[in-house]
């Protein structure tokens, strides 16, 4: 997986019906300078690992029933 680029997130913002985040906020996600979000690239890397785990037919979690 390639490293996240600002243009990708700007495309989501402008073309996916997203809230109009400031350019600076998008930039912070890609290249953190303020320390507000420090791990988005790390999160994506972790999610890529999770994508490779075979969960079989396990469904998404729903309510918990009283067994």
């Amino acid at each position: 997986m390639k490293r996240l680029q600002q243009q990708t997130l700007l495309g989501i913002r402008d073309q996916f019906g997203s809230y109009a985040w400031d350019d600076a906020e998008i930039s912070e996600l890609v290249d953190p300078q303020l320390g507000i979000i420090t791990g988005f690239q790390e999160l994506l890397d972790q999610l890529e690992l999770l994508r490779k785990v075979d969960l079989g037919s396990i469904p998404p979690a729903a309510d918990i029933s009283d067994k």
Partner: protein
Amino acid sequence: MSAQLAFASIGELAGMLRGGEISASSLVQCYADRISTLNATSKAFISLDIERARAKAETLAIDSTDSLLKGIPYACKDLFDVKGMVTSGGSRVLADNVAQHDADVISRMDQAGAIFIGKNNLHEFAYGATGENALHGTAPNPYDQSRLAGGSSSGSAAAVGYGLCAAALGTDTGGSVRAPAALCGLVGFKPTFGRISTEGVIPYSWSLDHVGTLTRNAADTALLFNTLASNVQTPAATKLEALRIGIPEGFFFERADTEILDSIDGLMSFLSAAGAKLIPVTMPSMEHSRTVSLTVQMPEALSYHNRYLEQRGDLYSQDFRAGLALGQCLLAEQYIRAKRFIESYRRDMDRVFNGIDILLTPATPAIAPKTGTVEVTIDGQAEPVGNAITRYTSFFNMTGHPAITLPCGMHSEGLPITAQLVGRHYGDEQLIAAATLIESSYGFKLPLPVIN
């Protein structure tokens, strides 16, 4: 107001109310006086309703057949709707959000005769475990005012911790009741997911949010749970000798303050000597649990707050906006996959509970950090402070198991050390009963905080 009364449990106060030693009105006034003196320090309350509390107290006639909550002053995190009051979420965004109805849990407390006195400070919209709030200030720890009370139910923990009310309600999405309770030496409880209604409570993450309680002891937790939940069962009588207590290997005993581990060891030794069976258990892999939790939290938070972003987006704090922006950039399949991992965790945990009654862990890996701390370093490894505070609690928001924290020691730096007990799904009653039994048998008495 004597410290003895300010720090009395609900059970003790109920006895005094029934015995005529105090009246509900005098109790409300005692707390009101204490709040007026200490709220600037504790930053526990962001709104008060003392007049309505006084009016209700004056109408109460308490007898021995009433709920033990009758006449007991309590508070709630400012995410809960109380009719006629602003529900702000600790944010400028909802500064004009006057509730039209009581939240379900507020109605239940009202029907039991408990007296609502005010709303507590919090991390804005429950986003964060430090309780830092630029608008209302950061609630300090009652045992050391240079340290955090913890969050996100920071004001709820401070309110009980500073002796400003008998109990408080909070919300727990990753440990936001249990962690501040643990850091402030209180009993924090979150039920089985869905067991206490979140109706009328501003959501943070629907899949993970739990309404919880902060009290002075486990018996008080039972009183609140019996009022807040439906279909409450009387727990079967239990003895320490009959308890099968799971001790998880690895994760929960790694990278933790050695004095915390020593205190938990001390509790385990006591339980073993008393006849409880301590059973090593292998937990599901926790390696990716924070990733899974975050991947569910942020899109859900964005989905709720989207209604306010267009008109009031500039009123959010910078850090919460950054979190919401992250939620915008995750893929739907990543969110669904995270929820499938949660189901997988639940199934694995159900297997763990096949051979045990409760699970025992430390509640936090560290004592309350200094206010302003960015990272906590343990065993040479740095970790963002919010992650550290909730490292041992957040997994059970995903699995939905009931969990309760109990003070069990005092750190050499003068801060409480706390254990966490986790029960089976819908085993809330048994969990609280076990906690009450362990608390009374172990006999640990946390010294009261010295509050200037």
